[in-house]
């Protein structure tokens, strides 16, 4: 990367996680010269600490646009992953066609039913349907198969379109295809300062200076700092989630549940807490104990299975839970969502033209910063 006056790039994407990589991929496909920068692992990397769900059934309560976008992305994921595999040789272990939010006890089931009914109602108001339905315990057992459920499992909500993917392989594939198509990916590159001079953005980074005519802020929670460099504040906040991962287990669960899924290599992921603890990601003993207890309430047969890893991650929460796609400066775009895995399938196709100066797509017209009255 050259420092000083010469520029090699048309646009710099700050952030190489699911959001950044998907958008950068779309941009490089459009033929522009893209630099994607990503800093060394710190605690603030949601991309490395998520569950891998491709999920629509509970997104967008009270927000039709968001629900619609999630469904669209979920339905587009098969083609997206297929294309990535073709281009990168990496199988992202995508599974679609069944996703369950499990309820334990009657109170949880009733609450879940109420939420799903509300989502159906809101969909119907727009003349649409919501792809989800409630299932009882018997149906859940049928879906699961042989492995017995805990006695307190009461049922849940089921989506025939949701599923999961291996998030690490997905990210790896996106980055690989990005580089393969001529994009430049710089890891270990942290942006300290952003300035505008003569219509260019000058980025001060740990690996030198970059001058580009346009930038995309896709740095997750790092966007808070990036936006400040441009004199703006954005309604983004962290929320901690703890997860447990077990050793490899013989295959027993062929589809994901919201708190428990079995990965391609057989290990079981168990999650997750929701904690407002600021920017720290420590795992707690009580968190581990609670997650374990819940997992055993779902599948008592998991008792002897060993936890090999646990971690905490920070969700990128926007003020209202729905994504933010907005212009934050003359040629600077800010993108943020806690659903960047699911939405990756549309980010690659939906956002680049708009970022390159085209009209704002209808699907995202309400996902602006103005709605927060900032």
């Amino acid at each position, binding site marked *: 990367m050259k420092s000083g006056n010469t520029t090699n790039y048309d646009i710099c994407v700050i952030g190489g996680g699911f959001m950044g990589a998907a958008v950068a991929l779309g941009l490089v496909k459009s033929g522009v010269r893209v630099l994607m920068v990503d800093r060394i692992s710190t605690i603030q990397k949601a991309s490395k600490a998520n569950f891998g769900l491709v999920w629509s059934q509970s997104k967008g309560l009270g927000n039709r646009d968001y629900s619609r976008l999630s469904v669209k992305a979920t339905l587009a994921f098969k083609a997206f992953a297929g294309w990535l595999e073709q281009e990168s040789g990496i199988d992202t272990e995508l599974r679609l066609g069944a996703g369950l939010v499990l309820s334990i006890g009657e109170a949880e089931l009733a609450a879940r039913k109420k939420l799903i009914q509300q989502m159906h109602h809101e969909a119907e108001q727009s003349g649409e349907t919501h792809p989800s339905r409630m299932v009882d315990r018997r149906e859940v057992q049928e879906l699961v198969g042989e*492995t*017995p459920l805990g006695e307190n499992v009461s049922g849940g909500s089921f989506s025939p379109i949701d599923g999961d993917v291996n998030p690490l392989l997905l990210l790896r594939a996106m980055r690989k295809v990005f580089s393969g198509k001529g994009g430049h990916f710089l890891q270990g590159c942290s942006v300290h300062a952003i300035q505008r001079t003569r219509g260019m953005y000058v980025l001060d980074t740990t690996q030198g200076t970059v001058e580009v005519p346009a930038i995309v802020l896709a740095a997750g929670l790092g966007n808070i700092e990036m936006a400040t460099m441009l004199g703006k504040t954005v309604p983004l906040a962290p929320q901690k989630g703890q997860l447990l991962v077990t*050793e*490899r*287990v*013989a295959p*027993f669960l062929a589809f994901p549940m919201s708190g428990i899924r079995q990965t391609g*290599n*057989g290990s079981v992921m168990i999650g997750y807490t929701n904690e407002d603890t600021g920017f720290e990601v420590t795992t707690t003993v009580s968190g581990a104990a609670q997650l374990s207890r819940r997992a055993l309430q779902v*599948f*008592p*047969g*998991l008792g*002897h*299975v*060993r936890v090999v890893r646990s971690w905490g991650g920070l969700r990128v929460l926007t003020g209202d839970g729905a994504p933010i796609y907005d212009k934050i400066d003359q040629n600077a775009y800010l993108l943020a969502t806690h659903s960047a895995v699911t939405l990756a399938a549309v980010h690659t196709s939906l956002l680049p033209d708009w970022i390159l100066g085209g009209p704002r797509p209808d699907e995202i017209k309400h996902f602006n910063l103005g709605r927060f009255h900032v």
Partner: protein
Amino acid sequence: MFKPYTSDIRKTVSIDFEGARLSVPAGITVAAAVMGYTGENYIRRSPAGGEKRAPFCFMGVCHECLIEIDGIPDQQACLIQVQDGMHIKRQTGLPQVTK
């Protein structure tokens, strides 16, 4: 792979190794019992690739010696002494999610 250095005059205990009754000196580790008194040359099969593995460090670090003792899997055999009546079974596949 291992053999007793001197014939042991210590008392012995009776253990069950995969259905076979064995008499081994009291106080030895389960890892030593498997690698020295059973005639076997491996202690488990690797969960990732399925090939035979034997303990490497014998001191609790490498985790190659994971074995099922009295029905409880994934115990580090090099850290546990044999007890009279112990049932020892090697792990050759992935754990099953049981009842």
